[in-house]
């Protein structure tokens, strides 16, 4: 039992605990905050796995971007102090059951399978390596998906604007 292990378990507890709270609390603002904790916990886990770049992206995009967006939209659409409506108990029961069964099935399968680590030499996930490969146009490069994703982002952006426009400009 070393420090690394302890940190891992603490992070795990943080992720799962606040994740669970996030989907169960009836105050929407708190749910957002719990989500924030979960995301931070995951970022921590990335740090723990020594993927610093991903962890940083996680914090920047998720914590800094998405959660803020969510909180904004909560402000836009929600009355203060209003409790979230409760789902029907049967639905809750069935959802829990389905989720549990799915989890059980997944874990059974995962535990049956032995993942063996490759013997090849490891590539360090440094920013330099990631950057080089991402923009590489050769065989192992990710330039094309990168471009595709950027197109997607553009499309999404335009889509957002069109959807959220107050009213469509009248074309006479």
């Amino acid at each position, binding site marked *: 039992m070393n420090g690394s292990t302890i940190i891992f378990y603490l992070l795990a507890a943080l992720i799962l605990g606040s994740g669970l709270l996030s989907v169960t609390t009836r105050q929407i603002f708190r749910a957002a905050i719990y989500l924030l904790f979960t995301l931070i916990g995951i970022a921590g886990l990335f740090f723990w796995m020594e993927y610093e770049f991903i962890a940083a992206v996680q914090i920047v995009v998720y914590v800094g971007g998405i959660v803020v967006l969510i909180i904004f939209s909560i402000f836009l659409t929600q009355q203060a102090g209003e409790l979230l409506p409760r789902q029907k108990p049967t*639905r809750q029961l*069935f*959802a829990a059951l*389905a*989720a549990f*069964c*799915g989890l059980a*099935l997944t874990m059974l*399968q995962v535990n049956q399978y032995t993942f063996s680590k490759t013997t090849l030499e490891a590539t360090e996930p440094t920013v330099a390596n990631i950057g080089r490969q991402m923009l590489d146009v050769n065989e192992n490069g990710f330039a094309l998906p990168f471009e595709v994703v950027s197109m997607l982002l553009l499309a999404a952006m335009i889509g957002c604007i069109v959807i959220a426009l107050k009213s469509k400009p009248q074309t006479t």
Partner: protein
Amino acid sequence: MPNTTYIALIPLLPLAGFLLLGIFGRTYFKNTSGMIGTSLLLASTLLSLYTAYGYFFDYGKVNGVYQKLVPLQITWLEFSKGVSIDMGIILDPISVMMLVVVTFISLMVHIYSLAYLKGEERFPTYYAFLGLFTFSMLGLVISSNIFQIYIFWELVGVSSFLLIGYYYDRPSAVAACKKAFIVTRFADAGFLIGILILSYYSGTLDFNTLIQKLTNPESLELKAAVTASFLGISALTWGLVLVFIGGAGKSAMFPLHIWLPDAMEGPTPVSALIHAATMVVAGVFLVARLFPIFALSAPAALELVGYVGAISALIAAVIACTQTDIKRVLAYSTMSQIGYMMFALGVSKYGGEDGLGYTASMFHLFTHAMFKALLFLGAGAVIHYIHSNEMKDMGGLRKYLPITHITFLIACLAIAGVPPFAGFFSKEEILLAAYHHNTGIYYLALITSGLTAFYMFRLYFSIFWNKPAQVHGEHHGEGGFAMMMPLVLLALGAAAAGFIPFGHFVSSDGNRLNSAFHLNFSIAPVALGLAGIFFAMWLYKKQNDRPDKIAASLNGLYKAAYRKFYIDELYLFVTKKILFNLVGRPAAWFDKNVVDGLVNATGNTTEYISETIKGLQSGKVQQYAMYFLVGVIGLAVLFIYIWKF
């Protein structure tokens, strides 16, 4: 043999008249259509007289035997090898005789109608239909192929339908024409099946080949046809009986006669032409045409023909005694006389002296055409004058219609078999033939002969004598030259046609047949005929209450005969109650409710199922997601744990 293809013109000229008047008559020949039709027919008549002269006195006879000549034959529709419908012309004594009869009577009717139907709105249509009928009838008599005869058979049926329905705005005429068509159609279905049977066994539709194959005792076809049997009766007999059913339908033989009296709804000249002289004898003609097969290969079928003819003759005569509509009396009389022709064929044998019945039948057909057409045209003149068909509206007309009176009397004497008028000779021959070959039929015929004289003179006295004439309002004489000329010509025929030595021309095997005249044999029928005439005179010459008394004393029989032995009602029952209510209605119901119901049920089931399962498509995203997850888990379990991939 000279080129005789011009014979094709005889039927084609009336056809041209039909097409011309049928298509353009209403617009271009409104008034001249009668003259056009008549002149075309006159040409036909002259051609057929020329043909008859040529055939009987020039090229027809080879070594003393009249030949069957086929001057023209065109394949019209080939079914398979050997089996084809040919359009052709056959020349033999009966077809040539029929050519003359049909064209002559038709010409008379054409002329008569010029006056009779003058001013009618559908005058061109009438002449067009007459042309169609004449064409079909001529085509029928010269047919060289059994299917050709069927084709023209149907065509005469339809022209009869059109002419009966000439006054189409009278519901009774519409009903009558439908009845005539449907009853004969029913018989024609039998005819058709008969043709199919005969053609199957003989492998041909051509009359000459057919007769040859089915009369030659050596031929394989005949053996096959006689050996094959159904219900214990040979296929050949079945075929001939079915063909005879077709003939019986057209010739109004019992029990298919019910259409004939109703057909009197048509214009009277039409009745004279179609329903007295020509079309109705087509059945007799058909049996005569196939006579060798009947006589040589299927005597049982011929016997049936004899009995049906005799029974029809008697029943029709009995009914005729009670009818009051003069045209109906004549219609039943026609049926009775055709019965004579039929049983004459039925009692005949093939060839020689025993073939007397055949000759007699054709002879009677010939004379009957004359005097029955005359009777109808005379009745037409009376109706034209008095505007009624009922005997009770008539009486004492002899002074007003002198020519009609005399010609009518001649016709009545002829049909009653009083010498020396035409009917006497032909009827004597028939009775003689029956006497020699079937005494049962002979006695039936004898009774009928007495009855015939009675009802004909009942008619005669009721029209021209009886009570004084009740003529009201203005009148237009007898109808002028156009109406009288045919009457006189036909009266000449009715008076003199009997002196033709018919057996010299027409006989079953083409040989000359000398009909011996037996004076002592003739005594009984003539005496009976005279008795009938005097009885009728006693009852009807002066108005009195004797007929009613007799009718009252014969209550049941009189009523039954008056109601035509309830045969119409029986048919009505069969068609209305059984065919319509027990077959047609259930079929329609079945279709609407069961078959269609099944189709709709399929549709409704689909709709019901979709209605039930559409709840799954609730529009609630979370439900969809849950189905999705459950589905994924289910499939995963299925694949992993059950099918063990």
